[in-house]
């Protein structure tokens, strides 16, 4: 028998200064969330398996802690908060005035190899803005994220801002199989231009399409990237995505926050539920992003209630690992 003192891989205990630091970070961030009128929601730690798998994508689905109750229902421990918040809004808060501003903090569980400062149980703090007008609520959640970081004393950070619709518009009309699309996405994500070229040759993609996809890998930089992206493609969906992104960027500029923003159209990875703007936050000196989020306009439909929504979360472990 294993000794009672052994700990399961992926868990940890916080005490002393570490515990104090964690609570201090939580309080600081919550004070910012509150000032922006976000109210805390405390969802359950487990729910039906299907609640989490709707729209989350295979990558995360494989990491779920699943179990079966005595009636034979499949349940899962929460791997993220957004699905639970969406479900609660659809079932309990649908008739409240919009936008609904909700925030949360707590543990999430994923069965994966502990890495990047995260265990199998790790902590997220974040918020969701549900039913709000597109650009304004996108800008709002980014402004809240920026203010939270500043309040924590983190002065240097970079927010990579993209639009999922741009890439979606590009690949929509190409007849890819699921495997081919996922291969292409992986190569874009690795930034492997040479591998991408030979894979697209194998798939007999036209020269124009190859040019677009290869250019995509480097579509990162200041506001001018939006214009570059526009000249590259002609399809409606990608242009619509860029219009959204431009409006959002202009809105952030009005708040004089564009110094923190890098436009990044090369990001193709992420949870499947994102439908519009997406962003990731990086801090110099840390090898992993400390948080991120995006727009997910179709998720609430799964729960029978059609509201657009946007949100983000920080990884508390990673915030803690930054020197204050």
């Amino acid at each position, binding site marked *: 028998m294993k000794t009672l003192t052994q700990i399961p891989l992926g868990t940890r205990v916080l005490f002393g200064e570490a515990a104090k630091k964690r609570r201090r970070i939580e309080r600081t961030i919550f004070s910012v969330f509150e000032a922006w009128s976000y109210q805390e929601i405390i969802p359950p730690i487990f729910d039906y398996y299907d609640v989490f798998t709707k729209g989350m994508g295979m990558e995360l689905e494989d990491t779920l802690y699943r179990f079966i109750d005595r009636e034979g229902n499949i349940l899962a421990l929460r791997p993220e908060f957004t699905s639970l918040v969406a479900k609660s809004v659809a079932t309990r808060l649908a008739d409240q005035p919009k936008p609904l501003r909700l925030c949360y903090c707590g543990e999430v569980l994923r069965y994966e190899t502990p890495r990047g400062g995260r265990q199998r149980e790790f902590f997220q703090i974040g918020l969701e803005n549900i039913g709000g007008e597109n650009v304004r609520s996108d800008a709002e959640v980014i402004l809240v994220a920026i203010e939270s970081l500043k309040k924590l004393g983190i002065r240097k950070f970079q927010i990579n801002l993209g639009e999922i619709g741009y890439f979606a518009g590009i690949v929509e009309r190409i007849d890819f199989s699921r495997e081919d699309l996922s291969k292409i996405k992986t190569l874009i994500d690795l*930034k492997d231009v040479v591998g991408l070229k030979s894979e697209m040759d194998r798939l007999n993609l036209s020269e124009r399409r190859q040019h677009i996809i290869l250019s995509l890998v480097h579509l990162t930089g200041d506001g001018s990237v939006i214009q570059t992206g526009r000249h590259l493609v002609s399809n409606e969906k990608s242009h619509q995505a860029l219009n959204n992104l431009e409006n959002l960027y202009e809105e952030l500029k009005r708040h004089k926050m564009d110094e923190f923003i*890098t436009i990044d159209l090369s990001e193709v990875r992420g949870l499947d539920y994102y439908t519009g703007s997406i962003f990731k936050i990086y801090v110099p000196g840390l*090898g992993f992003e400390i948080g991120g989020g995006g727009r997910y306009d179709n998720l609430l439909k799964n729960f029978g209630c059609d509201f657009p929504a946007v949100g983000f979360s920080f990884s508390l472990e990673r915030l803690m690992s930054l020197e204050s």
Partner: protein
Amino acid sequence: MSKPSLTFALSKGRLLDEAAALLKKAGIEMASDINSRKLVIPDTQGRFSFFIVKPVDVPTYVEYGVADVGIAGRDVLLESHADVHQPLDLRIGLCKMVVASPKATAKRNYKDLSAVRIATKYPHVTTEYFTRRGVPVEIIPLSGSVELAPLLGLSDRIVDLVATGRTLAENGLEVIEPICDISARLVINRASYQIKRKSISDLIQLLAAVIPA
């Protein structure tokens, strides 16, 4: 002198001389002898700070951002599943990952064996390769001299890297099937790629221009 803009992890051993030669062709030279015992070496222009670590550790240093960039063999990248950007195949450190077997039993079919016993430094790659083909394997993880395992009866087969095939031949082994081509890759930490974009894209361009055809 300002702080070096990029920290650079290099693999100790076989790959080191080839990597240093490639960097030199790209105009990046180490300030002191790479084969000295020093662990951290700057380049002559103060742009990089190199450290030389065990090959299997390069992806780890880069994934965690302790090194912004690194040069790592595809073998260790496949084995580690490190979450890093891999923009360039540097075409150095060329070899193949193969399944090899003693000559006497090379013709034996997998179907005759209830489970193949395989000694390797690459347990993940090996398991994935065989289970995808429906062949049950028993992995014997070793960290060196893998060719010895079948000679001493520790395993039926091995999965290892082969460059010239000489070591295999000298130990009475032969290649029975290739798994994949191996070469060294430039690897980049995801956050560094975003935050130090200018220095990193300069480096990629410099190296891309000197990759052997």
